[in-house]
């Protein structure tokens, strides 16, 4: 008899199985969708793959897109660990971009050694403060943070639009919604001829720091306890409110840093459409990587590739939204994978004991 049995533990192999399964299933689903709408799925996928990973330029662009995804996904993972559903990374990214731009435009004469650290600080602070707007009501009144963080995304984007049409507008750009361009000192350095910028070191540093804080410090341990069971944490005397506020603010600060690196290294000014939804992609990446910081780095590169590959597929008429669709489908399959991970097919009597 075939039946489903509950697993007692999740194996290491499962950690790898889940994202691989989800991605493959989403691509299979996408193939059906592409076929129905008149495209040859093999052709589309080959184009995407070669566009993203086929040559050095593709790899470089893939990494460029991966950087903000890494930072935002590391950010949301901090909140998700405590079951705080920060889906406001998009808005926190925009506010980070605003904070960094404000510094860059206020101190046009400052040297890079002063300006760049200040921009990083301002970007992270702006992202954290934006998250704080949702964190305080969540911590003290239990106001649903999913809705507040999401609503704040719209507010942040309109705020940036206001600035680039108003106070920050470049008078020499006529009516284009662009801020005054940053001075050279406000630009993050890039690697060689590519657009890969110092933001990649921010992301790796952030991942390493998270691994350390979560695994080796009391603070990280308390976060884990609260994530597993808030009641236990409360009885153990952990300051739950403080943890909620700090986790959401850390989350926002990392997304803010993504915004800072985007305006400083890529755009060189505050402008319209800074993010094609990095903050939302980050949610999917964090779930696929099962909140593991190094996993997030790897999955982000894959998702950067998906974006770049998506541009390549547009040449044969595949709408850019195909990528968003694939991403959304992946998140569904993560849940299916989780179900398969919790259970397993067993034949006959009791299942063999799981190792790992």
């Amino acid at each position, binding site marked *: 008899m075939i039946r489903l049995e509950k697993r007692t533990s999740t194996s290491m192999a499962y950690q790898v199985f889940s994202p691989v399964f989800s991605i493959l299933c989403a691509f299979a689903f996408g193939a059906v*969708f592409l076929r129905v*709408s008149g495209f040859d799925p093999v052709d589309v996928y080959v184009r995407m793959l070669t566009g993203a990973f086929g040559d050095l330029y593709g790899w470089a662009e893939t990494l460029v897109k991966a950087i903000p995804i890494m930072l935002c996904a590391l950010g949301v993972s901090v909140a998700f660990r405590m079951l705080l*559903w920060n*889906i406001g990374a998009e808005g926190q990214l925009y506010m980070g971009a605003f904070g960094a731009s404000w510094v860059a435009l206020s101190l046009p004469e400052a040297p890079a050694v002063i300006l760049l650290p200040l921009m990083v600080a301002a970007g992270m602070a702006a992202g954290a403060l934006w998250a704080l*707007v949702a964190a305080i*009501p969540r911590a003290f*009144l*239990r*106001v*649903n943070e*999913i*809705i*507040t963080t*999401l*609503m*704040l995304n*719209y*507010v942040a984007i*309109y*705020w940036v*639009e*206001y600035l680039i*049409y*108003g106070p920050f507008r470049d008078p020499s750009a006529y009516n284009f919604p662009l801020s005054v361009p940053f001075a050279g000192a406000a630009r993050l350095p890039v690697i060689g001829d590519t657009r890969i910028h110092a933001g990649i070191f921010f992301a790796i540093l952030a991942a390493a720091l998270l691994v350390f804080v979560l695994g080796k410090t009391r603070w990280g341990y308390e976060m884990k306890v609260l994530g597993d069971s808030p009641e236990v944490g409360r009885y153990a005397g952990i300051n739950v409110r403080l943890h909620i506020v700090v986790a959401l603010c850390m989350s926002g600060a990392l997304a803010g840093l993504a915004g800072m690196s985007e305006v400083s290294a890529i755009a060189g000014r505050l402008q319209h459409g800074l993010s094609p939804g990095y903050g*939302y992609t980050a*949610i*999917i990446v964090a*779930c696929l990587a099962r909140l593991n910081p190094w996993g997030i780095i790897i999955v982000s590169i894959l998702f950067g590739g998906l974006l770049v590959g998506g541009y390549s597929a547009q040449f044969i008429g595949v*709408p*850019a*939204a*195909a*990528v*968003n*669709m*694939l*991403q*959304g*489908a992946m*998140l*569904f399959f*993560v*849940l*299916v994978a*989780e*179900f398969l991970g919790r259970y397993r097919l067993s034949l006959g009597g009791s299942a063999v004991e799981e190792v790992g």
Partner: protein
Amino acid sequence: MDGLIWISLLSAAVSAGTPLLLAALGELLCERVGVLNLGVEGMMLVGAVSGFLTAVATGSVAAGVLAAILAGGMLAAVHAFISVTLGANQIISGLALTLFGTGVSSYLGKHAIGVPLPVAVEVFPIPVLSAIPVLGDILFRKDPLVYLSYLLVPALWFWIFRTRYGLNLRAVGESPDTADTLGINVIATRHAYVIAGGMLAGLGGAYLSMVYTPCWIENMTAGRGWIAVALVIFAVWSPPRAMLGAYLFGGIDVLGFRIQTLGIMVPSFFLKMLPYIFTIAVLVVFTAYTSRRHALGPSALGKPYERE
């Protein structure tokens, strides 16, 4: 301001509130049965694009509305399968639904941008009622979909609170174990109402693309699906209060445009922020006010049901 401006403002608030009301009623059903569906935004978008495309292709409003309802229901069925049958995390499944629905709607609607709707949904003043001063102008010179939403409010209230089906529905949302013991099929009941909720969200989306705007614009819901989720909390899971809330939020939505036409100098970006800031403010004030008394909402909300 004279009376006419108020009447036109309130009438516009009802129109702007109708998609919110339909989506909120859907979410209300879904949450009453114990399932949180954060995919409202995605279901509305897919409903909007399916309704619009079908109406363009067939030239029939009714076909468009039907397509939107079906599309919303189909997406909700995915959420039901993942979160109810597989018992997966409802929050993540709902987010997936919104992200997926946003992508699908842009994908399908790529060639619908800028296309005019060949048929218009006619305003149909209700005889006698539309002649009532003030109220008649605000409520009874609308299109049939608005009237449908008026009827849905008392109908759903009656269904939820006065029928045996409603009793079962609430039992499943409050205490699935007890409901199961009483012989109610918890899984099937949850599936049914989650899908019904999705159908209403799809209809809400169709109202936007076929009546309110009427055209297809990418991401045209602009967070309305999320506002509908907030509305359900504000409505304490009761249809009449959802109606009140929907028109209040609809009013805030149109207020922005009106302030501009009155010549008050506020940058338009701040006016566009209004509905979102208002949603946050209402949610904070309302949660602060209710949490002092007792926790509200169906007890089993968000918890997957697994038979022991």
